[in-house]
């Protein structure tokens, strides 16, 4: 009897003693912050984490709830809502956005920025050298790109902004408890340029197709300067981008190989695509869903190209068939956007997102050269012809002239619209040029009949060009002012 009590008590004491250690449990799928930035391998993983932040669900990895691939064209005159589809983003198409029903780019972009800031603030843990410079350069470039995307959505166009107009907070800290106010538009653009310029001095020339490199960063810088209407710098940056791309083997696409870009069948080492965000089947992100979904042998479009715009692609323009397809759905003939339909083999609507490519860089330079004045017209025409040669079969160089009433400027802007359609540009181009969004009265069917857009005009300078900041930010941060609608 006593023995039993003795055994019992000692068992009890053992359990009491052994249990204290068990009270510390660590997760199997996460590391503490202090262990995350020690070795070069850690930094590689971190920068790849930053790139995967670009693939955020309302950012470059968005599907049908707001994305870089679709929304800037939904908010423009390039598309018409298809009555055959699920009416995704219908409220954006009709410019009925409110702070609670709006493209939520804001949190996705800042999630990406946090990842850049962690790398930048810990970069001192690496020893000096090319590896360190490259990582720092990539992080700075990504930070600049994300802030730039935020500015072109939520801030006024640089050219028409006053010094007091608010931009977005320019965040360089990893402190999660700050409540920053909106940096002024002009100051923020300046910081974007500063980060990108610094990145270009540090970044390597080739990090593979899914990471930034010098020519990609210079290409992005030419885009940023274009938005700032800083023509001279835009020309310089574009020239550097083309030069560095060419010396790395990358050349402008030809009519023969242009189509392969969009099914990710291009030769990555020589492709005109300077940087793309990687999406693989296993990631489960299908960016084409914002435009269409295949349904057996036909396609169910969410949006079709605007009929008037569709007719601007001539029969010799290889971009026509690369971007736009024809289908019959529920008995109706429809055009649909095939740009993100998918690869030759793989899941539907899964393709990489092409962020910057030489086609755009040439157009940036042409537009900037034209705007420098009559002395630039010849160079602008030359760049325009170079681009067109790469897009039209059996092309003879054009001879457009510049100046008021001339044909050169409209030709450059037309080529820009045709080239960069459905690629995250149109809304921003209209906004920076101070133009109105004027949709046609054509319907959604392939022959232009059908249901036309409910809203066909957004006047230049309208408040609708600056999207409302998400209500959850306004609620959490009293220092943020909302954009009037």
């Amino acid at each position, binding site marked *: 009897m006593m023995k039993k*009590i003795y055994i*019992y008590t000692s*068992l009890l004491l053992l359990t009491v003693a052994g*249990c*204290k250690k*068990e*009270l510390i449990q*660590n*997760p*199997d*799928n*996460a*590391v503490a*912050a202090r262990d*995350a930035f020690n070795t070069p391998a*850690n930094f590689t*993983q*971190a920068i790849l984490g930053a*790139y*995967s932040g670009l693939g955020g669900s309302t950012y470059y990895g968005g599907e049908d709830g707001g994305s870089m691939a679709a929304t800037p064209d939904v908010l423009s005159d390039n598309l018409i809502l298809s*009555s*055959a589809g*699920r009416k995704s983003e219908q*409220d954006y198409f009709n410019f009925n956005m*409110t*702070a609670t029903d709006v493209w939520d780019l*804001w*949190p996705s972009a*800042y*999630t990406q920025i*946090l*990842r850049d800031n*962690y790398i930048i603030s810990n970069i001192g843990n690496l020893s000096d050298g090319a590896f360190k410079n490259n990582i720092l350069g990539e992080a700075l470039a990504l930070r600049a790109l994300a802030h730039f995307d935020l500015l072109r959505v939520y801030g006024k166009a640089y050219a028409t902004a006053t010094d007091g107009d608010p931009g977005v907070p320019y*965040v360089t800290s990893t402190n*999660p408890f*700050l*409540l*920053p106010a909106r940096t002024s538009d002009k100051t923020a653009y300046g910081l974007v340029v500063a980060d990108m310029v610094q990145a270009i001095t540090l970044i390597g020339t080739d990090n593979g197709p*899914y990471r930034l490199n010098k020519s990609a960063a210079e290409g992005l810088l030419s885009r940023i300067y274009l938005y700032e209407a800083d023509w001279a710098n835009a020309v310089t940056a574009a020239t550097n981008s083309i030069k560095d791309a060419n010396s790395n083997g990358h050349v402008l696409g030809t009519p023969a190989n242009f189509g392969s870009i969009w099914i990710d069948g291009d030769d990555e080492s020589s492709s005109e695509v300077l940087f793309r965000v*990687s999406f*693989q*089947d*296993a990631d489960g992100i299908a960016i084409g869903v914002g435009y269409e979904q*295949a*349904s*057996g042998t036909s396609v*169910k479009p969410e949006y079709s190209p605007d009929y008037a715009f569709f007719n601007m692609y001539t029969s010799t323009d290889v971009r026509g068939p690369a971007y736009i397809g024809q289908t019959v*759905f*529920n008995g109706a003939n429809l055009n649909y956007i095939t740009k993100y339909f998918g690869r030759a*083999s*793989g*899941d*539907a609507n899964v393709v990489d997102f092409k962020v910057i490519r030489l086609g755009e860089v040439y157009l940036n330079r042409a537009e900037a050269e034209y705007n420098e004045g009559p002395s630039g017209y010849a160079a602008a025409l030359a760049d325009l012809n170079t681009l067109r040669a790469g897009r039209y079969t059996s092309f003879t160089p054009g001879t457009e002239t510049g100046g008021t009433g001339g044909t050169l400027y409209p030709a450059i802007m037309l080529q820009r619209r045709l080239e960069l359609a459905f690629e995250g540009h149109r809304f921003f181009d209209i906004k920076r040029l101070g133009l109105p969004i004027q949709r046609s009265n054509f319907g959604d069917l392939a022959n232009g*009949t059908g*249901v036309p857009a*409910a809203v066909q005009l957004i006047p230049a300078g309208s408040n609708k060009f600056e999207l409302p900041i998400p209500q*959850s930010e306004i*609620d*959490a941060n009293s220092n*943020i002012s909302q954009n009037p609608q």
Partner: protein
Amino acid sequence: MLSITQVFAQNRTITGTVTSKDDGGPIPGVTVKIKGSNTGVATNAFGKFTISAPLGATLQFTAIGYYQAEAIVAGEKVNVLLSSLSAALNEVVVTGYQTKTVASNTGASATISGAEIADKPLPSVDDLLAGKAAGVQITTQNGDPNGNAFIRIRGTGSVNGGSQPLLVIDGVQIPDNAAPQFYNGLNPNDILSISVLKDAADISQYGARGSNGVIQITTKKGSSSGNDARISYLFQYGDNKAIPDNFTLMNSAQKLQYEYDLGYTNGDLANVLGTEGLPQDITAVTPSQRQTAWNVLDARNHNWEDDILRTGHIMQHQITISGGNDKTQYYVSFEKYDQDGIVVHSNLDKWAGKINLTTKLNPYLTFTNNSNVSENGTNVVRDRFNAQSPFVAMYIYNPYEPVKLPDGTFNPTSQGINILEELQNVPQYDKYLTAIDNSSLDFHPIRGLSISSSIGMVLDQYTDSYFIEPGSELDGYVDDPTAPGFKQDDGSQDFSFDWVNKINYKFDVAKDNHFSILGLEEFQKDEYTSYSLESKGYANPALSTQDNSSANTGANSTTYSAYTIFSLLGSLNYNYKEKYFLDGTYRRDGSSRFGANDQYGNFYSVSAGWLVTDEDWAKNIEWLNSLKIRGSIGTTGNFSGIGNYESLGTFSSGKYSGLSTIYPGQIANPDLTWEQKNNRNIGVDFQVFKFLTGTVDYYSDLTTNLLFALPVSQTSGFSSVEKNVGAMINRGLEVTLSADLIKKHGLLWSVYGNLTNNVNRVTKLYNGTNEIDFDGVDVIKPGYAINTFKVVRYDGVNPQTGAARFLDASGNVTENYSSADAVIENGKSPNPKLYGGYGTSVSYKGFEVDADFTYQYGGYTYNNEYQTLTSWGGNYYQEQSTLALNYWKKPGDVNVLPKPSASSPDEGYLLDYYLQKDNYVRFKNLTVSYTIPKEFTQRYKVYSFRVYVQGQNLATFNPDHFFGDPEVGIGSKDSNLYTPGEQSLFSYNSTRQFTMGVNVTF
């Protein structure tokens, strides 16, 4: 001094009879002794006793079930009348780690006997609790046979933490994630009783896990009679159908007219016009051409509900065996339960088995083992707010769209997918295996002392298999054309053990002071692992195991997560003369979930009770049979709100372009701790006039340290950090009454009812915040009930133009909708003001009729179903209810919907127009049964034979015309909402069952 002299005074032989005050009959086995002495005698079968005592001595009479009495020896004959305690007071109640009698229980717990929930056509225990106990609000989620109900005890105690109570089965704590599966896995007919623990006296024993209350299930044990074992067979059979809608959908003619008025030509109509050589625009043809085209579509008119819903069958077989003797008792049961769901391809296939065994190894040592295993297999029907859910599809497909095309293939419809094709070709099957095994060793070395050690093991295993058949419609949409077909197998296993070591000592001091001391140490560890495998490329729809695939998708993964809790509990129960009761508990919990700075918590309770009718002066009140007043105060914690690793700052890993990445996952909070509740309760238990029994409780529970995802500026890259801030209070009144109205000549008629009034108020949020938006339609704001609705006020229609009018925030009429004009609707929240159940039971000579009702009053629901089906034109391309036809047509129209338009954005509006009262009374169950007289059946060696018919969910009284079913769960199951009653979305319809059953016992 005096007593000693008296004892040595002359002893006489005293005789007497002890009889019962109730019916005058003799009481055998009464202990008679001289007060102060240890030796006594017992009354014989006739209530007579003989004892040796001097004149003037005081004799004490004690018997179980009776109030103690005393009498002074005045002569040689002493006759005594004993009054019985209400039988109820002697019943045993399981309250946490101890068992008490109702009389000595200072807590407010409610007990539901197994008989109240037995033999019903519902396979899950949680659904069966509806309306059965005051303070327990059960909202059945929906009619899914393997679904779960929401259980809220005394209001919603938390915002972001869990609000479900702790589940304890035969003493074993079930991990929170696994509890829903165990409600479904147990066989309700195996349950002896369920104790619902509600106030500090009982729940503080559970410390950090107790704040949402505790549901304690005790399963049946064998008998110690030594008789032959009882073998019982139950067979139940019946059917299962959806409750009819309380609204009408448009027929083809109505829908086509509506589409025409909006200028819309649907795809099917365009086809018809095209084949007739006409322009494919219904507004561009002549009226007669239009009518001809309409007639073609009209001929295809049908009701999609008829194609998608069906009558399902229910079949149950059950065998139980129970028996034993005073050394060993056993109870064994086996159940097979099959229920077809109301949607084609939906069903539940349940197996359950149990063995409970108790045996005395020797006079001091008892060994007990309770085991239960069950497997629930179910064909899953997607329950989400899009056309891939049959409960949405049947309301949004147009009535002129046929199920199948002329060539025999399924019609993809304007939604792009035919749900019947998907149910057939995209099967999803879930299996839940739950097992619990509890072994304990109890050691009683000396009288009053018991030492025990028990280990309970709990296993909850889940497997899910999802297959998109190659060639199906969905395959065409989402899969890789070079590797068609897609299979995903995933599953999880949650294994935990709960090791309790307990020592309990009961002793008396000076005869009238009864003490019970309990000391306990408990250790729990829970390990959760999961896996997910997927692959693609299936050649044959019949071969779906992954060894048939041709390509990997690369998305396979496994996870692991664990937590531990270590606890110490001390409790003291004291009573004086079984009349005055005082209890106290103290529990200390430490857990791996809590932040490093706050890892241990201390919880206490103090409670007291007074059995008033034990007072001599109270015994003279004829009509007052029993009265007890009790009160309790204490603290508990809410452990279920925190994830396993939430206090740590971490980086998570992922992949980009096939390579490993790390990225910031979580902000650190070393101060993270459980939410704490301060519980106060005061209650009265009574029985009057010998037939009316009742309990009234008033409680006030203050929750502090509420866990909030404190919003941070999204510019930080995060949206929130978990912090303990904020406070909320729940106050309420619970009333339970039951009465035996007639109890004569074999006719018994009893009624019961319970009512709970709960008022919730948020008292504090974190600094600098006045209001938190929650789910878009409601807010959390100090001074208001949790989830008080905040919506824009709708002001009808402009009679001249048909435009919709709203009130802006200042109350002025405007025709512009702005979400900034939303106002808080004080008093309107999903929390009902009153809820409960009532019922009656009549029995006569073997016939019995039982009826049960549940009700709810004072809650509101935002009715998304109503908004989707009566849009202002924005949903023109899908089916609508006939209410959508009542729109503005000409100047002067009033009481109509606004002039519809195809681009109307009203589906994004949040209006008080769709905020409806969801008051209801539901006729939950009617059972008519007949038990053949035992004298007759026992001649044929059948101990009892009972047949019954019953109906479940027979009728609903919906006084405020709620559109759809007023008993609202969380909208759709996959909706990521978790506040019951807040929003209605389309979900698995509630169902009605009719069954008949036979219960034979040998």
